[in-house]
């Protein structure tokens, strides 16, 4: 039924802003790219490599190692994919440029993905190329050179065909191939194993070993006695494959994305792994191949100097400038509507957008998407086409989309943590007459002089944010020279300012990030208190007294919590009989359904389809999260199952809660959308993978892409932040325990985001990866 409101315009901005890394092999359509300095720089390095003339006789081929470093969402993956496409175009060969993202935290896993991506057929082809070179040399001896085929349309025979047709000395030629491969790969095992691929009966055995399996006895008899199953061997194997590809003076580009999953300051690898990694870089350079590494900026500090020196170029991904965001918006709208216009965005809103996000490409795109939708809804509802995106709209969508909390939220969290630990504090405390000396919290410790100032600030993106913050820090410091300062940043903290603040405070500012903030904050306060000078004259007795006071304060808070908990447990106990009855009813219904009995209501979850477990788990997680959030079935069951009316009161309380209906409605629609997406994907999988028993065709990938787009198009109107009333509310099964619920509230929000955000690209990626792996 038409309401008379015009239909929504298609949104030219991606809701996920996640670069597409699967299926791009077959796609000519390039994603929109803004030519930032980093993009130009990286592309020019790669182009120089691709177009370099072949080395002269006796010269080593010149390889390259390019590192692309940037924070999350700065477009590293997008650039990586673009570089692979560029290389494939220049080399006219998709086999010579490969994209690989680290999905696990080890090089072994990365190597296995690499080998799977290459596939046996490609590796065999590469080995055959070496054989063809050697056969061609032998043909010159016979007085035949390749190119004897004169009839148009006829193909050059394969090397083994030539050997057979002319009776060439096959054993001598194979020995030469083996010697060449051993020399090229600098690895006896690979030289042997790869040469075996030229003979019949060895493919499966060699392939299993290349994939990391234990060497088959047939290989052990030939000296290959260990699997490729540790970090050092995996790195060496990757180098060998680079040499295999690069060893014929050919160009080969390997892009390793998300390397931070393996190498990061949080996960320092073993020294021998770092050395093996260094050797990999060396091998790429000497093989004349090009290795592109994408990682977080801390890769610099993780690698040894000697390893860093192997990286020929480092490209830093910086935030988009205002002009670049202008261009991005225009190009996006041109691609969608055919007109390169800025409206409904304005210069002011773009500047604000840039300031809010620090130019982080992913945030920019997401906010553009949300702001466009908000304004388009306004335009449609008011029929006023002049409505534009204002800084206020950007602020609002940023708050919802990026998960930044309001200043009040942060204050509440800090307060709860201070209370829970029994620390005494004053809120909004002026340390001097100057208003700049205001601290959000002033925490004191009875056996310590001075105190700890806790300052909460918004995003610190540029000098404009830094200047007032610096003034506040200086003023607080001057007012309380013995005091300590903990700075909490609610939003983005630009890296250069992080370093400056670290110097100024002597410690890293705390950026509010869930999960883990509470633990970090507690640890920081404790460490700060330890560094404060002890009060002179403090005796063991006064210390004990102070400690008792602190414990008392903690206890009073704990009693509150226990009180809530006790109520909750009472509620649970009193309803346990009814719960049991409800569970029995549910079980009976399930048993009936499983026996083909009459449906007892809407099916709770359709039978699991024939999707691989890894993929179906993504759907099940999303559905489970939504079910846990609403627990409507359980709530209704209990409403009918309990005779004392206690459950009914709770049901009624929920039904009358603000925004409950809307949130439940959205959750239900989300669930239906996920289920429909799952059904469509299952049909696709059955038809394109199971029944065709192979790699998905380009057409099949397009179909999958269309399904994902359809899901996104619906999901766009069902943003996860509209579930906030449900995430803020204790789950039905935990009702009555306010403090308990308070602690898990943020975790619920994170769970919702983890399970539902970017569902379609995750499904697409895992599905294609799984299809490629199973297709051999």
């Amino acid at each position: 039924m038409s309401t008379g409101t015009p239909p929504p315009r298609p949104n030219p901005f991606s809701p996920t802003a996640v670069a597409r890394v699967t299926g791009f092999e077959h796609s000519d359509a390039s994603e929109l790219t803004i030519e930032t300095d980093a993009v130009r720089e990286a592309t020019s390095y790669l182009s120089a490599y691709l177009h370099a003339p072949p080395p002269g006789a006796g010269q080593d081929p010149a390889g390259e190692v390019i590192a692309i470093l940037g924070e999350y969402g700065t477009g590293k993956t997008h650039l990586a994919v673009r570089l692979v496409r560029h290389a494939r175009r220049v080399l006219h060969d998709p086999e010579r440029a490969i994209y690989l993202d680290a999905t696990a935290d080890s090089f072994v896993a990365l190597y296995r993905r690499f080998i799977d991506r290459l596939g046996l057929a490609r590796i065999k082809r590469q080995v055959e190329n070496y054989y063809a070179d050697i056969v061609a040399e032998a043909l010159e001896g016979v007085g035949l050179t390749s190119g004897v085929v004169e009839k148009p349309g006829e193909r050059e025979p394969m090397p083994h065909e030539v050997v057979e047709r002319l009776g060439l000395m096959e054993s001598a030629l194979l020995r030469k191939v083996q010697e060449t491969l051993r020399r090229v790969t600098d690895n006896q095992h690979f030289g042997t194993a790869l040469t075996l691929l030229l003979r019949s009966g060895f493919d499966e055995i060699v392939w299993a070993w290349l994939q990391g399996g234990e060497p088959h006895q047939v290989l052990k008899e030939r000296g290959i006695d260990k699997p490729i199953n540790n970090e050092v061997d995996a790195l060496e194997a990757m180098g060998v494959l680079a040499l295999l590809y690069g060893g014929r003076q050919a160009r080969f580009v390997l892009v390793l994305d998300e390397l931070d999953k393996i190498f990061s300051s949080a996960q320092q690898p073993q020294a021998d792994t770092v050395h093996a990694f260094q050797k990999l870089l060396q091998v790429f350079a000497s093989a004349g191949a090009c290795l592109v590494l994408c990682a977080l900026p801390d890769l610099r500090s993780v690698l040894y100097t000697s390893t860093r020196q192997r990286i020929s170029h480092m490209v830093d991904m910086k935030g988009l400038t205002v002009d670049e965001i202008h261009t991005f918006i225009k190009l996006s709208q041109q691609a969608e509507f055919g007109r390169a216009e800025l409206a409904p965005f304005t210069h002011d809103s773009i500047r604000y957008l840039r300031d809010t996000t620090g130019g982080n490409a992913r945030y920019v795109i997401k906010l553009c998407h949300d702001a466009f939708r908000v304004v388009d809804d306004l335009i449609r509802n008011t029929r006023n086409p002049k409505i534009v995106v204002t800084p206020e709209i950007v602020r609002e969508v940023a708050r919802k989309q990026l998960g930044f909390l309001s200043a009040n939220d942060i204050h509440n969290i800090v307060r709860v943590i201070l209370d829970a630990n029994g620390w005494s504090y004053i809120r909004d405390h002026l340390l001097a007459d100057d208003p700049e000396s205001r601290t959000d919290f002033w925490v004191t410790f009875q056996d310590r002089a001075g105190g700890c100032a806790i300052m909460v600030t918004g995003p610190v993106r540029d000098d404009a944010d830094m200047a007032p913050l610096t003034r506040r820090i200086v003023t607080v410091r001057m007012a309380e020279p013995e005091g300590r300062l903990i700075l909490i940043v609610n939003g983005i903290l630009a890296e250069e300012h992080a370093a400056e603040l670290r110097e100024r405070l002597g410690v890293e500012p705390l950026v509010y990030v869930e999960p883990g903030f509470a633990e970090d904050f507690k640890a920081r306060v404790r460490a700060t208190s330890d560094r404060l000078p002890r009060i002179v004259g403090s005796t063991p007795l006064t210390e004990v007294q102070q400690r008792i006071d602190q414990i008392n304060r903690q206890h009073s808070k704990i009693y509150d919590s226990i009180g809530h908990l006790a109520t909750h447990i009472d509620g649970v106990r009193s309803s346990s009989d009814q719960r049991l009855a409800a569970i029995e009813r549910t079980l009976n219904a399930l048993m009936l359904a499983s026996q083909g009995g009459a449906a007892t209501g809407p099916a709770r979850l359709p039978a699991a389809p024939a999707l691989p477990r890894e993929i179906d788990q993504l759907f099940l997680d999303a559905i489970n999260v939504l079910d846990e959030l609403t627990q409507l079935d359980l709530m209704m069951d209990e409403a009918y199952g309990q005779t004392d009316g206690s459950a009914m009161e709770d049901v009624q309380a929920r039904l009358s809660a603000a925004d409950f209906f809307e949130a439940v409605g959205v959750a239900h629609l989300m669930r239906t959308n996920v289920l429909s997406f799952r059904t469509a994907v299952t049909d696709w999988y059955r038809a394109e993978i199971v029944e065709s028993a192979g790699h998905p065709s380009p057409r099949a990938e397009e179909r999958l892409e269309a399904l994902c787009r359809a899901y996104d198009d619906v999901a766009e109107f069902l943003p996860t932040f509209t579930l906030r009333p449900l995430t803020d509310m204790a789950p039905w099964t935990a009702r009555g325990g306010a403090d308990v619920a308070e602690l898990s509230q943020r975790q619920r929000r994170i769970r919702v985001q983890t399970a539902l955000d970017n569902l379609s690209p995750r499904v697409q990626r895992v599905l294609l990866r799984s299809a490629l792996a199973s297709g051999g």
Partner: protein
Amino acid sequence: MTEALPKINPFLPPDWAPMRPLCPWKQSYQRDYYVSVDDTDQAFKDFTQEMDDPTTLLHEGRLALVTGDSGCGKTALVHRCADDVARRLDGIGRTTEIIDLTDVLNGRRQQPTIDARMAIVCDRLFGALKSRGALRSDAVEELASDRDLPDRVYPYLPDALVDGIVLVVLLPMVELADEVMRYAAYATERMLFLVESSLLTKDEVSGVIRAQEAWGRLIGLHVGPLKRGDVARYVNDRLDRHSTDGDYPLMSEETMSRVEPRLQSVAQLQRALYGTYKERLRKAVRYDRSSSVTEQDIVDFLKSQYRDGPGRLP
């Protein structure tokens, strides 16, 4: 006027396929078909010297390992050695059973391990000996259930063979030194194993020979690529040999010396010359002694092979 001779291909031995290695123990006329090319004469001499007295086989086994690249005449040499031993033993009243197992491992989808290969060979050998009545009946009964267990069969064979029989086994091609060593260990009295390999390296062969020196069971033979003068020797032999049997074009010494660098092995030489003559015959142009096969004819044939494959060879 003499009667016109039939047009024949001088590179096709009678009743034999053109690319099939010579096998004098099956076709006795082929005993003098061997031409001294590829070091084969020298290798054969080495063998006969080592087996100067074949009766030694009655109390100690031997293994002859023939190495050399594909097409250099290893199989033909193996057959010649088998035939030689058999003839000489026959001359002193002994019976020789030549069991050819060279093809028992062909056409397998996946390469077997050494153990599996040896089990297959052992099983087939037992089957062949049984069907030829070369095993004593009580031994057949005793070994039947273990017929694919080399450790069970080979050590027992000298006792299991019917009296007076000496066994010559032509083994499948090997590529691993370990396999050669294991067969050498099984070569006990009344047994001669003949095995060829094109993939063992010089170092591996030296290693095997060194390891077997103390036992004195192993005979190492090697054949190589064509040497200077080999082409002329081979061509002249074949053109002279059939001069009274039929008519065919001749080949000048110059042509022989010009094609020599193009051809590396005796198999390649046989393939090129047989094919070139066949092509001339097919075209029905000037196929007599007044005509010649030229270098260009040979090159044209090689080109056609490269393009069209071996379909033109019978």
